[in-house]
């Protein structure tokens, strides 16, 4: 890419309100949106607030909405965008704005505290250790890739459009719950909460969360739908209920 100028429409404001302001930045080969934001911050708007840390797509700090889609600023290359039009950079819509591109994501951490913690079975060995096979842990390891960028929470219309923060924990915490629930050592039962207060039934499988995940976690197919199926097992499937009468103790 030859060095050129591009316009960035960046949302400026705070919890009281705000508007987009146009800035022009010099862009060159290899730049990402975060580079442009830093350049604007250094040369034109020293008070522009943005959260960032690793610039490598691993810390999950620089989440924003670029041209209307939730993305990490550090992983969005400028040569993938149409620079003939202004590039819009807005804060995540699902969370209250603090200032400019920084949002208050503390709701997520409060939700996390409500989820029942890991509760392993009794140790397999006298030294307090367990036996686990890699094959049993493969499924869970996909979920451990999550960097908690909250882009999935931001794009989920149950939170974004319907603001059901009290009834629904969001894709990130279905992934978290699935990682615990499917763990071969875990013995805790989280299905009653998942069905009732955490709103697994509110997900209508739009797969938007999967689409925006920078770690390519198959959130819907591998976490949410399997949890929904476990809820069906427990609460909606009469044959399974009958089956449990003869095999009351489940595996795991």
């Amino acid at each position, binding site marked *: 890419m030859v060095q050129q100028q591009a316009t960035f429409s960046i949302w400026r404001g705070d919890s009281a309100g705000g508007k987009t302001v146009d800035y022009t930045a010099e862009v060159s080969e290899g730049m990402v949106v975060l580079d442009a934001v830093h350049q604007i911050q250094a040369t034109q708007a020293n008070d522009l607030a943005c959260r960032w840390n690793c610039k490598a797509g691993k810390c999950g700090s620089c989440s924003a909405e670029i041209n209307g889609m939730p993305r990490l600023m550090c992983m969005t290359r400028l040569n993938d965008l149409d620079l003939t039009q202004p590039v819009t950079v807005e804060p995540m819509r699902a969370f209250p704005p603090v200032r400019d591109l920084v949002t208050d994501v503390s709701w997520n951490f409060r939700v996390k505290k409500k989820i029942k913690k890991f509760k392993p079975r009794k140790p397999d060995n006298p030294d307090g250790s367990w036996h686990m096979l890699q094959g049993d842990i493969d499924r869970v390891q996909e979920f451990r890739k999550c960097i908690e960028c909250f882009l999935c929470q931001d794009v989920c219309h149950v939170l974004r459009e319907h603001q059901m923060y009290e009834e629904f924990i969001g894709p990130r915490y279905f992934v978290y719950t699935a990682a615990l629930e499917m763990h071969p050592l875990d013995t805790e039962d989280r299905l009653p909460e998942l069905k009732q207060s955490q709103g697994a039934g509110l997900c209508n*499988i739009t797969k938007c969360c999967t689409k925006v995940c920078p770690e390519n976690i198959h959130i819907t197919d591998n976490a949410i739908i399997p949890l929904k199926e476990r809820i*069906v097992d427990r609460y909606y*499937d009469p044959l399974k209920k009958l089956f449990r009468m003869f095999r009351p103790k489940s595996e795991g």
Partner: protein
Amino acid sequence: MIRRSLGQTSRRDVWWVWPVLVFLGLSTFIVYSTWAAFQGRDYHFGPYLSPFYSPELWGDSPHSWFGPKPGWWPAWAPFSPALLILWAPGGFRLTCYYYRGAYYKAFWADPPSCAVGEPRKSYWGESSLPLILQNVHRYFFYLAAIFLVLLAHDVWKAMWFTDPGSGKAHFGIGVGTIVLAVNVCLLGSYSLGCHSLRHLIGGSRDQLSKAPLCAKAYQCVGCFNRRHMMWAWFSLFSVGFADLYVRLCSKGIWHDWRIF
């Protein structure tokens, strides 16, 4: 936060194209399959039976299991063998996890696409009536599995052509045989990638290593499941085309070529 209205978004891409294509694709299939189901004729040709009419429980063709239209069928109600059975595969697709996500977007704009404004304030999801009934999906899968076996049997029967002179059946392959066989393969690839099946066959276990057969089956279903959307569309097209092929052959519009 100010609620966005229907279609309001900062997205620059043509986000509306996919929902429109889904709307057109599913609408075309629903209109055609409903029309074909109500016809009650031209659904068989030689050894071929349209998948919309299989199994033919009651009907006038040689494929019928229990003979012609039953006497208890109300005189005022239109009769077609397809009406007796199409609810099962239809229910399987209606409650399928992939189609659910697709038609919520395309038909109900809930949401129209990711990060795009919606028309309604209220939202119940699948946690209350009527959408809580989507949880019946696994039972429709059981029925769909039976249909797969029956359709595979139809392919076998589609390999035996009766000689008009002698009345004897001879083994052969026609283009129709291949159309029906490809249809069963695509329907199988779609059905065997079902999320409910993946759960039932092994996904419900936390220690798959304790059940090696389940682990293998889980992997196999997972292979189909990873392309569930693709198989859903391919099989939808193929089942519609298989009916169209048999129908046009039956009407004499298309000629069924015998390969051998």
